């Protein structure tokens, strides 16, 4: 049967990255166990390197296929949109589990922690100090990323560059402030269920902020290299969606853990 490619679908070329990605996360997980039990970093470092290299090269290939090869037709674009939406939904469920744990522990606190929340002898953060600043930072970054999107759609290269840069800067600022809070915290992850729920929820949120900032940074670099047009810039839209999701999760964290949980 003679076959021609007269269809809008993208049948991807053979790629080693799914395999190297699997090896990478396996090494990462095994390395984590080795770190916890034997206090040895070697395997986890190797896992990080393999996974990071895979992610970089896989996503580099996707932007090559879209921008340089023109494989991203309207239908492929729709598929990528659905993919990103479903991924974000899965991440929402991931965070729901940590919020579940928090509310389970805080709504009826155990007698072992003093039948009160926050538990006795835990000094929580003042929600109106750095956490409030972090909230303002993330909400502002939501504004700047929307500004960047509108500038893109209005064919304004310079303003897209400025607003995207501001968004990344705000993302870094949040990370730095949160790192400072972590260092200066009067309680640790080992300090009762309060510490566990606090650091698991805010810790994973922090990782997502770093990933979101990195995603926006790659969009910034791609924008400077003229990958985006005013009609076709899905990479940027995906980064913006992810960033809004990170922002919303923080708002939930702030209201429930920092404010209500104080």
């Amino acid at each position, binding site marked *: 049967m003679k076959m021609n490619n007269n269809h809008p679908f993208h049948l991807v070329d053979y790629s080693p990255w799914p395999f190297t990605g699997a090896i990478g996360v396996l090494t990462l997980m095994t390395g984590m166990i080795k770190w916890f039990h034997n206090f040895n970093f070697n395997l986890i470092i190797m896992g990080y390197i393999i996974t990071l290299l895979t992610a970089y090269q896989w996503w580099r290939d996707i932007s090559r296929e879209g921008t340089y090869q023109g494989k*991203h037709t309207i239908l492929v674009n729709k598929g990528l949109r659905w993919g990103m939406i479903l991924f974000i939904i899965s991440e929402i469920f991931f965070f729901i589990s940590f919020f579940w744990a928090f509310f389970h522990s805080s709504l009826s606190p155990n007698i072992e922690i003093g039948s009160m929340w926050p538990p006795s002898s835990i000094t929580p953060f003042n929600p109106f100090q750095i956490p409030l600043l972090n909230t303002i930072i993330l909400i502002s970054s939501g504004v700047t990323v929307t500004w960047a999107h509108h500038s893109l759609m209005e064919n*304004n290269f310079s303003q897209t560059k400025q607003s995207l840069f501001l968004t990344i800067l705000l993302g870094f600022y949040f990370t730095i402030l949160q790192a400072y809070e972590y260092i200066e915290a009067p309680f640790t992850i080992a300090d009762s269920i309060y510490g566990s729920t606090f650091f698991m929820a805010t810790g994973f949120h922090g990782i997502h902020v770093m990933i979101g900032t990195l995603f926006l940074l790659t969009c910034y670099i791609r924008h400077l290299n003229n990958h985006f047009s005013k009609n076709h810039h899905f990479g940027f839209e995906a980064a913006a969606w992810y960033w809004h999701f990170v922002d919303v999760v923080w708002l939930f964290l702030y209201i429930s853990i920092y404010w209500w949980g104080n």
Partner: protein
Amino acid sequence: MLLKSLYGVSRFGVRFYRKLIDPLDLLTGIEKRELLAHLAGDCDPFRILSIKKGPGTRERPNLIPSSNSSRLICCHCTESDNHLKFMWLHQGDPKRCGCGYWFELCPIAPL
């Protein structure tokens, strides 16, 4: 280099701003051909949308466009049907569905 940095600069009120690359210029490959087809008025450049059956007789079969030597098609025989009848159609071999409609593969150039 100064002149190069002014590429795509335009006025917006009293400010100057640089524009992004023209979308049609940036596109390449099959994505570009798809968009050009859409701009030319063809809303189904890949011929994948469903088509309404014509007379479908042996003398005037429904022509199914394809740039391959075979194509998988399905027939929605009547409006009230809740299933589709699938069949392979091969070049130069007209086929009849169980409902009586004839189909024939019609070669077209790929996009």
